[in-house]
């Protein structure tokens, strides 16, 4: 194995390969920053380009894109509260408050440090478990998918104990939205308003663009001013502080990375949920969970570490079975096949060198993207000082064009606009938006997992505790419910009498 890794490493030292890696990183950053675009779009556009390239170069470029997109997406999440890519949505929670306090550079510094560390962790884990890839993927069947989705939904419920009812309301709406479209279990078409557009359900990316990007820009125009409330105190020199904070919170980094690697490996659940669970894990482990959401640096570090770790995890099902762990991986799968590689049982044996090369490219890209990000932070943080009157129309126009460019469907633009208004109303009346996104992502997995489990288990509920993985997941669900609800009760009991006095 070591020989294969060093071979792959040597292959990457070629000047041309490095150039492709760098090109991928730049493309990844740009596509990551623009809300609506993202790694999937970047890969799809560059897919024909990989045709004439040799495998190492193609993987270097793809690895560059996938490794760098997370950084780009998080930069817009922090600066604009508009996640450039779906998995960066969790970074908004504390990243944007930091930017509003004029600490955008610090948050970006934390991203720049946490991303490559997470990526590195994911890579090391992946290299260790590669021989077991099959067994790991086979651990997750329909009952486990259902439980995992429930775990994700539970972590929404407990993420913000003070807003529990509102969070649950929004998550309920998100679940209802996730049931729109073709029902893969019973075959019916549901809630499509008679249009073919909604046949495949409410598309995630346009919904996200509206809910976050557009909503935020509407709010900014209504309020006036710029993102950073006080222009004079917007510090541009906090990068080192952010990096130091990340190193000091190494436990948060490791926890986030573990969550990212594990959840990333589960197809259909994917990155958005991984970063969110990483966030709520950090929050639950903190002695002062209520301060999350007001600009805690740990709230940026945890999702960022998992954001890059998840790519390594997502490679497991993609390579071992040809089941993409994420949308990006689906396109990447096509690039593999174009280069004459058939993902499947033999992949790890026949194309070991290429696989290791890709993993190295992913990690190198995360490091490189951080360096580029840090170099640009001075100009990037400046965005928070641009007056809303200029920023809002620009961001809205760019993200709508980005939304349209993905599938060239006019319906996507309309949907983004509708969700933009919805997002603004939620913002205005203090309803959290992330539960909606998580529920939208997980609703289908939960529903499908449940139906399939019931058929497989022939109607017997014990199917949900029928495997060690399932039992662990059930325990995790119970644990995270008690963990956060109990202290919440205690606190209300403590503050209750005082409030009544």
């Amino acid at each position, binding site marked *: 194995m070591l020989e294969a890794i060093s071979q792959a490493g040597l292959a990457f030292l070629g000047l041309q390969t490095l150039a492709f890696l760098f090109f991928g990183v730049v493309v990844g950053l740009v596509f990551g920053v623009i809300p609506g675009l993202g790694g999937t779009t970047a890969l799809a556009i560059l897919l024909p380009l990989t045709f004439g390239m040799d495998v190492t170069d193609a993987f270097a470029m793809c690895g560059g894109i996938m490794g760098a997109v997370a950084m780009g997406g998080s930069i817009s999440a922090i600066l604009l509260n508009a996640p450039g890519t779906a998995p960066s949505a969790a970074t908004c929670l504390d990243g944007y408050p930091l930017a509003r306090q004029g600490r955008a550079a610090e948050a970006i510094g934390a991203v720049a440090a946490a991303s490559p560390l997470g990526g590195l962790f994911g890579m090391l884990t992946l290299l260790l478990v590669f021989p077991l890839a099959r067994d790991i993927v086979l651990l997750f069947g329909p009952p486990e998918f259902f439980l995992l989705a429930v775990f994700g939904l539970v972590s929404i419920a407990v993420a913000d104990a003070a807003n529990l009812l509102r969070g649950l309301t929004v998550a309920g709406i998100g679940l209802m939205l996730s049931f729109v479209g073709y029902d*893969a279990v019973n075959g019916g078409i549901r809630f499509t308003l008679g249009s073919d557009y909604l046949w495949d359900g409410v598309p995630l990316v346009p919904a996200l663009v509206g809910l976050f990007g557009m909503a935020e820009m509407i709010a900014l125009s209504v309020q006036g001013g710029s993102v950073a409330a006080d222009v004079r105190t917007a510090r541009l020199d906090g990068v080192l502080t952010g990096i130091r904070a990340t190193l000091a919170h190494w436990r948060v980094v490791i926890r986030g990375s573990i969550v990212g690697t594990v959840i990333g490996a589960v197809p259909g659940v994917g990155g958005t949920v991984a970063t969110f669970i990483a966030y709520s894990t950090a929050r639950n482990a903190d002695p002062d969970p209520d301060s999350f959401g007001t600009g805690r640096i740990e709230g940026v570090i945890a999702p960022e570490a998992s954001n890059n770790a998840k790519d390594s995890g997502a490679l497991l099902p993609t390579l071992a079975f040809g089941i993409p762990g994420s949308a990006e991986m689906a396109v990447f799968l096509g690039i593999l096949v174009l280069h004459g590689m058939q993902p499947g049982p033999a992949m790890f044996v026949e194309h070991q060198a290429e696989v290791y090369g890709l993993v190295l490219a992913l990690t190198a890209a995360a490091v490189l993207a951080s360096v580029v990000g840090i170099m640009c932070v001075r100009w990037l943080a400046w965005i928070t000082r641009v007056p809303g009157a200029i920023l809002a129309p620009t961001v809205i126009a760019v993200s709508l064009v980005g939304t349209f460019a993905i599938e060239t469907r006019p319906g996507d633009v309309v949907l983004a606009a509708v969700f933009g208004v919805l997002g603004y109303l939620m913002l205005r009346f203090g309803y959290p938006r992330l539960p909606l996104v998580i529920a939208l992502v997980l609703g289908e997995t939960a529903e499908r997992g449940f*139906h*399939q489990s019931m058929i497989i288990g022939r109607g017997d509920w014990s199917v949900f505790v029928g495997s060690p993985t399932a039992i662990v997941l059930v325990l995790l669900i119970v644990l995270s419910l008690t963990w956060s609800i109990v202290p919440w009760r205690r606190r209300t009991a403590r503050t209750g009498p005082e409030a009544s006095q």
Partner: protein
Amino acid sequence: MTIVRTSLRKLLQLLTVLSVGMSAAAAQYPERDIEIVVPFNAGGGFDSYVRALAPYLERHLPGDVRVIPRNVAGAGGRRGTTEVYRARPDGYTIGAFNLPGVLIPQLQQQRVGYDLSEITWLATLSADPYVLAVESASPVQSVSAFAERDGPILYGATGPGSTAYVVTTIVNARLGTPYEIVTGYTGSSDYLVGLLRGDVDAVLVNLAAARPYIDAGDIRALAAFGAPDVTTASAATDALAAPELAALRLVRMIGAPPNLPDDVRTTLERALLAALADPGFADWLASTGNAVSPAGALETRDTVNAMSNFYTTFASLLN
């Protein structure tokens, strides 16, 4: 350089959507780029197939034009198919079709926006037989042994109405043993993994998808329909493989909008058949385990009609 040009063009295309060039009818077809609509997302098996084929198609077409695959995914392939059906029949928009995937919804009298009997068929790329497979460790050694089992046999499939579902239903109608279908899998790789994991007892899956697992000894093919020469590990094709079930194949075709002029059709048909026979494309097929079974325009049309008749006889099982 040409690669860079293609990509730039693709990018421009994405951003500016469609260039509605309306040149005069093809005196010297083709005089500009040809678009192949792929009704699936970039990166899928069919998408890769078309993308791998496109450069060879360019090579064998007269003139110096590009062949650009464009993904129009959605609604189980209906969106892209509808787009081809409605496109101008000038030979600059052609489409990739998978049957019976887009045929079944039409036969189910769903509102699909196209009529396959009107499509100008150009060529068949591949016809992939279905195999009935079980996990290697399964005690079931033959199709007839299914009958001796207690309780229904669980099959994995995508949603009701999907090809996998309909094929499973038809085969089981012949088998006559009690069965149940676990729906909701996202695709053939997904229910193959479900089979490995033990979610389900058996699957009906196209051979190209099953082959890597058969070769690795993970699953066993009990029967292969319409492919007596399939050399799978233990392909005991028994009495069940009734001749009419040979129509259970996953066929990938290239077609054009209705009323395509004959000369354009002939040009495209020739180029497609030459591309499919190109040694370079054969290398790609071999390295990825993809199959090819080329057929010309008339034969493709006959295949579509035969499939249509076959599934119509099972109309009561389609819904």
